[in-house]
């Protein structure tokens, strides 16, 4: 199939991954050693993923690793991110997902650590985030974590790994990146509101379709 316009070409796709990592790092949404990203061209059974152990804001496109959905390295000079298990688990489950981001967004994680769930406080929080599940802790970089994520990813575009970090997915990196941003924004708002009392929610009848569809 011709994917003109749907996909960036490989060169630009790889560059977009690098740009995403820099952007996330510069805004304090991940440290230089935590967090990872992957992206693929629509319909492909392989993806470009960030390497393990390298300082993320310093990455070059040539550092990325191309892996198949069983984690086998097809191309690249480094080890793929240890979280390739959950990246591939998501790609296997979601034909519509072509990009995955993993961050350690501090406010989002802070609320999750206190088991505070995000509510539909803004229109974006309602439509884009909907229900963001908090998954019980599983050891990072394990197949067990991969399976847990794969089993939960249907119907979600963001999820939180307790005591660990955030996963967002999208048709492309822009969608995944926007979701990280909206999540953190909603978390900060919720945090501030909670200082004074529980946050006000959007009246239910105004977001009826969303609330009913997502069961939030």
């Amino acid at each position, binding site marked *: *199939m011709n994917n003109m316009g749907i996909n960036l070409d490989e060169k630009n796709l790889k560059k977009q991954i690098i740009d995403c990592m820099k952007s996330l790092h510069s805004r304090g949404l991940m440290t230089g050693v935590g967090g990872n990203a992957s992206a693929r061209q629509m319909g492909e059974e392989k993806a470009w993923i960030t390497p393990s152990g390298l300082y993320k804001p310093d990455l070059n496109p040539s550092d990325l690793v191309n892996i198949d959905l069983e984690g086998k390295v097809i191309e690249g000079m480094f080890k793929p991110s240890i979280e390739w298990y959950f990246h591939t688990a998501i790609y296997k489950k979601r034909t519509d997902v072509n990009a995955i981001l993993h961050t350690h967004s501090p406010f989002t994680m802070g609320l999750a650590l206190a088991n505070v769930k995000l509510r539909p406080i803004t229109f974006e929080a309602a439509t884009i985030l*909907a229900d963001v599940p908090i998954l019980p802790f599983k050891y990072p970089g394990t197949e067990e974590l991969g399976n847990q994520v794969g089993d939960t*990813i249907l119907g979600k575009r963001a999820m939180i790994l307790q005591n660990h970090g955030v996963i967002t997915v999208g048709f492309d990196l822009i969608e995944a990146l*926007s979701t990280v941003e909206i999540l953190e924004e909603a978390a900060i708002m919720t945090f501030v509101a909670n200082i004074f009392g529980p946050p006000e929610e959007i009246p239910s009848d105004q977001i009826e*379709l969303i609330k*009913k569809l997502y069961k939030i």
Partner: protein
Amino acid sequence: MFGHINKLIRVNLTKSRIFTENLDRYDLKEYIGGSGLAAKIIFDELDPSVDPLSPENILLFMTGPLTGTASPSCGRYCVCTKSPLTGLWAESHAAGFWGPELKFSGYDGIIIKGRSDTPVYLSIIDGKIELRNASKLWGTDTYQTEEYLKNELEDQSLKVASIGQAGENGVLFASIINDSGRAAGRCGVGTVMGSKNLKAIAVRGTKINVIPAAKNEMLKEFLRRIYVTIRSHPTAQIYSSYGTDGIMTMMHEYGDVPIKYFNKGSWTEGIEKISGEAMAKSILKKQWACYRCIIACGRHITGNESGTRKEGSGPEYETCASLGALCLNDDLNIIAIGNELCNRYGMDTISSGSVIAFAMECYEKRLISKENMEGLTLKWGDGDAIINTLHQIGKTKGFGKILAKGVKRAAKEIDKEAEEFALHVKGLEIPMHDPRAFKGLGLQYATSHRGACHLRGLVYHIEQGERVPDLGIHKRYERFTTDDKAFPVIAVQNWHDIMDSLIMCKFAFLPPASVLSMLNMVTGWDMKLDEFLKVGERTYNLKRVFNITCGATKSDDTLPKRFLEEPLNDGGSKGQIVELELMLKNYYEERGWTERGIPKEEKLEELDLSFTIPRLNR
């Protein structure tokens, strides 16, 4: 020319003659393409009094200017004709890859007239059009036909649209199937194809795999950034993960899912077993996406060990409701098997489930005797009965012979009392949304040009609080109100007529302004938004006039008594009936139609439809 190929195929099956003509003999800015342009062609060329199953009927396969281009969710084609079920305008759309492939092969559409003496199929490969012998294929199902033709023409990438035994046998709601499970399902378009002895149309274009746009680079850049908008609609997320059946539990909460042939409003325990979530946990293997679709609502399901359920195309929401809730069947396995049967025989799953549920109610009320049914029992929820009846309908054997005529005609043959609860509008069975849950939908069903149709409007989204500013839908419409429904119903009907002309999938929720930008980039046009929106009103009115010339009157713009007089006792729309009269009156007024529902001359003139006036006055 960009977007359109500018070539139409004309086939006269009686004389085995094929020729081509340019598309630009029509005013494309007035009708765009797809079912809008088809309406113009059918209005011009079809005598509205012809028997739909006679050689004189026209069968039109059309694509639109966006079909097969880089635009997302534009893998569709439509089939237009005069319907054997309703005797009125018929259009039925299917997705997958057949539509784009027709354009890659060098053509925008196919106009078919006449009837072949012997079974034939049409092959269109890289510009070369041939009528070929299909005698060997007669009697095979649609999946077998596809496989056979791929082998015969030695091309596994061949795209095939075909009828199954239902279309051959004259089942009045026969469909046309492509890509092993995508259906042009409604209105009996497959029946018309069968009546012409046309088994299949196989298409292939090896030279290109995307139709270039006038402003290719601009389009590419536009598309790259518009995906987020399509995906940000909440239904896109749900459809991606759970298919269209992902709305099952939500719609049940509204009292919208029809249960026990619209007799029950609540069935939580059953609904949970046939929901999209339940499917994802059980028989789902993977998502399936049509040509350049970024949602992938299609379901690819696993087979079972006994082999009764085969791996392949899985059921959508409409099918899960029609073979499930409507028949009080909570077995997803039966639904999946039934879905495959309907696809293979080539018959509409909505109408199939509807005639079975109707028969179940007849059986319960003892309106049909056992001997009449040749040993079949039709108890509510009986999975074997559903499967057996589907076979009987597809083969038009036994009691299936009666049910194959659709509920309206079947009721006439069964009993006077049965006519009271045979649920249809203008002869087309009701889709799987209860108009008592969304009253605007009731108005939409009553006024839709092809009969009870949920897809020319999807007005329930508006009644769930969706706003579409480009269409003037700014406020929150409540689902049970009636005095304010004419405007939004008309707005979405007109809008969806445009979507069906482009042709674009209605699940890609983009604002009309963005869709127009895409059309302009593809075609190189410079169309303005008001001009664009006018197209929908024009084609909607043209189809209306066609129906009137076929004999439709105001009395056909109605709903079955069940929705007008009988409220449900439970569920989310408990106690509600559809107060249609008032809505209809407002609707005619707002449309610029007379009290009898006929477009006024000044309205037709305003829409450049003056040429229809002499026919209306005849």
